[in-house]
């Protein structure tokens, strides 16, 4: 029996104050499959990632990892750092008083590595992300793209099984964004990581993932191939995407 079956949502609901963000959401995210969470702004993509990561608990329903319940209503049974996940936040969440290297090294603190090993691993990850020369600089002195790479390096350094990207490329120019997308895809393949990307940008989603879940009005459909969704989905996001494609082709 395969014990690495990935994440599963079962009838999950989540509200903040008076607004219900997720309403009876169920789906499975198989291990090793790169999946995009697609939906308009404010539809609950980030909340879904926070629930998967164990940073929030559901109000109802349960979340499973490899068949084992990890979150039940109002309870986080398995803490975030024991889920094998890592995340690049929308605002990157870099620690501003630490250098790029220190950000990565502190991110490894949970592994309790020897100091030299932590430094070595941090340098190695910064090199993979192409910013080893910026190791000594603080986030405030880096460009947007460089900051994204530091956040990515911090997330990759401890070798996560799942990498969550929460609208990580918002605010980046096109060339930088697509260079980063390609690099992330390569790294994910090299390290055999499962990517889960929250985005409202279909190009971004299609560049990184083969599969997608559409979030709409607090509900989610089953996982489907992005190609199929682009052709057939009735979701407004895909509808407008098809129109843009048609107008480009027509023009």
């Amino acid at each position, binding site marked *: 029996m395969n014990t690495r079956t990935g994440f599963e949502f079962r009838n999950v609901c989540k509200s903040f104050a008076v607004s219900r963000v997720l309403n009876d959401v169920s789906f499975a995210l198989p291990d090793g499959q790169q999946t995009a969470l697609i939906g308009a702004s404010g539809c609950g993509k980030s909340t879904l990632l926070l629930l998967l990561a164990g940073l929030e608990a559901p109000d109802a329903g349960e979340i499973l990892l490899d068949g084992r319940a990890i979150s039940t209503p109002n309870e986080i049974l398995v*803490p*975030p750092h024991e889920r094998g996940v890592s995340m690049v*936040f929308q*605002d*990157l969440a870099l*620690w501003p008083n630490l250098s790029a290297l220190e950000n990565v090294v*502190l991110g*490894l*603190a949970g592994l309790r590595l020897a100091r030299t090993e932590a430094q070595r691993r941090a340098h190695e990850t910064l090199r993979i992300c192409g910013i080893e020369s910026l190791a000594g600089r603080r986030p405030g002195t880096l460009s947007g793209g460089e900051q994204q790479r530091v956040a990515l390096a911090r997330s990759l350094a401890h070798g996560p099984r799942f990498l969550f990207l929460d609208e990580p490329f918002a605010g980046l120019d096109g060339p930088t964004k697509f260079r980063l997308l390609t690099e992330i895809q390569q790294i994910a393949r090299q390290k055999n990581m499962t990517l889960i990307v929250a985005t409202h940008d279909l190009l971004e989603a299609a560049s990184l993932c083969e599969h997608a879940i559409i979030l709409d009005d607090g509900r989610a459909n089953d996982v489907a191939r992005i190609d199929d969704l682009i052709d057939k989905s009735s979701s407004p996001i895909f509808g407008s995407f098809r129109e843009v494609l048609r107008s480009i082709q027509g023009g």
Partner: protein
Amino acid sequence: MISCLILERPGRWRIIGLIVALSLCAAPYLPLLIQAGFEVGTLGNIFTDAFVRSLVNSFTVSILVAIVSYTVGLPLGVVPAVFQVRGHKALLALLALPLLLPSFLVAIGWSSLAAVAGEPIHSFINGRGGCVLVFSATGVPLAMLTAYIACASLTGSQLDAVRLSGGARAVLRYVFRYASAPTVLAAVLAAILSVSDPGPGQIFGVLTAGAEILTSVAALYDFTLAGQQCLTVGLLVLLIAAPLMLFTAPSFASSVLARQTRPVERLYHSRAELCGLFGLVVTLLILLAAPLLGLFLPLGNGVEVSRALEELRRTTGNTVLYAGLASGFCTCLALAIAFFIGRNHRLMIMAVVILSIIFVLPPSLGALGLLQAKSFLPGQLDPLAKSSFMVGGALALRLVPVAVVFALRSWGSTPRSSALAAAIQGVPFSRFVLRVLAPLMFRSVVIGGLLVALLATSDIVTVLFLHPPGESTLPLAIFTVMANAPESLVSTLCLLYVAGAGALLIGIAAMAPRRTA
């Protein structure tokens, strides 16, 4: 291992912890309130002619102080916050100095100036007018700084949008409205604080509630009477303060404790700059320069260096010790309260309301409550109850609201995702606090601690009631000797105190975070 997620997760422990911490802050006031419950029948006996007159005087003065503080403080805070006013930081820092001086020092200054100025200024100052001037010296800066901080929490884009819709005038209207509620709160706070302050009333010969309470304790040694008077003043204050706090706390919490996303780019407007500069300089001359001039006038008759240094040597240790203890206790308690509140807006409003009410209660109420609590303690605890720790602790509990504002502001400026990222990476809680949180919050918390130390130093009522025998502070020594000692000695001591407070204020100003674009 404690997860960093604890910093951001809700939980019942937050409300329980907050209630425990706030109960600790309220504890000094409880003994007298409980006693009053048993002696309701005898409470009517304290309403003698003199006490009623003192209440009328105190509340008349406080109403005038509230009006002056709001009408002067609001524009003085708003204009330099949104318009370019050259040198405004130095002027604001100088105007903040009276906040950190015991009010009786300012009163002594006005009193000696009145003696030189002659009639009609003499009669004006030696009456309610003098009290209003002295208390406005703290009320105006408090309202001004609140308005300034409230406006500084506006984002650049908010102001840009208003500016596009109606120019500089619309911006001014918008920020006046935005800063109005917290400024009202600050002005009323300052006014209420004046009710229980005995210094200016005694110096100007005005019968005030604070002076009556002090007389009951220091001259009549009637602690029961003093307790009942304190309680009456406290209940009257509560009657005014509680509804106001409930009404303004939400806007105070969202404007003064808010997190700024993009700093305001100050607008250039020549007339606004001129008005701002003129207002700040004139207010500075009236509220600070004039009383300081009066305070130091007697120095022309000679400087009593040796006696002043002797007094300084006798009191410096205690002054620093009480201030240090108060600052330390207060900072720890404020951080705990900020931790319990987290980012929960309801808990924040609850804490702001309760702490504001505690802050405006007469300090003598808390000090007398602690004196009474001491009498119930077992004999083994006597060394602790009569030690400097008691004074430091009492001052800390009184000044917690100040430190909480700084702790909440610094906590609010760290993004939520910072702790979430640490939690997901498995960074141990202690490591995250030491490496990230503490360095980020350090400056703001230290400034809060230094302010508490200065405010604790300028408090005379709590120290007067609770200090161990012979262990006085410099302001208390000045307050005690001012009636009998030569004017030049009092002036020299005041000069030393003002110089010390000024130096610390410069230190605080130097530590204040710089605005970045």
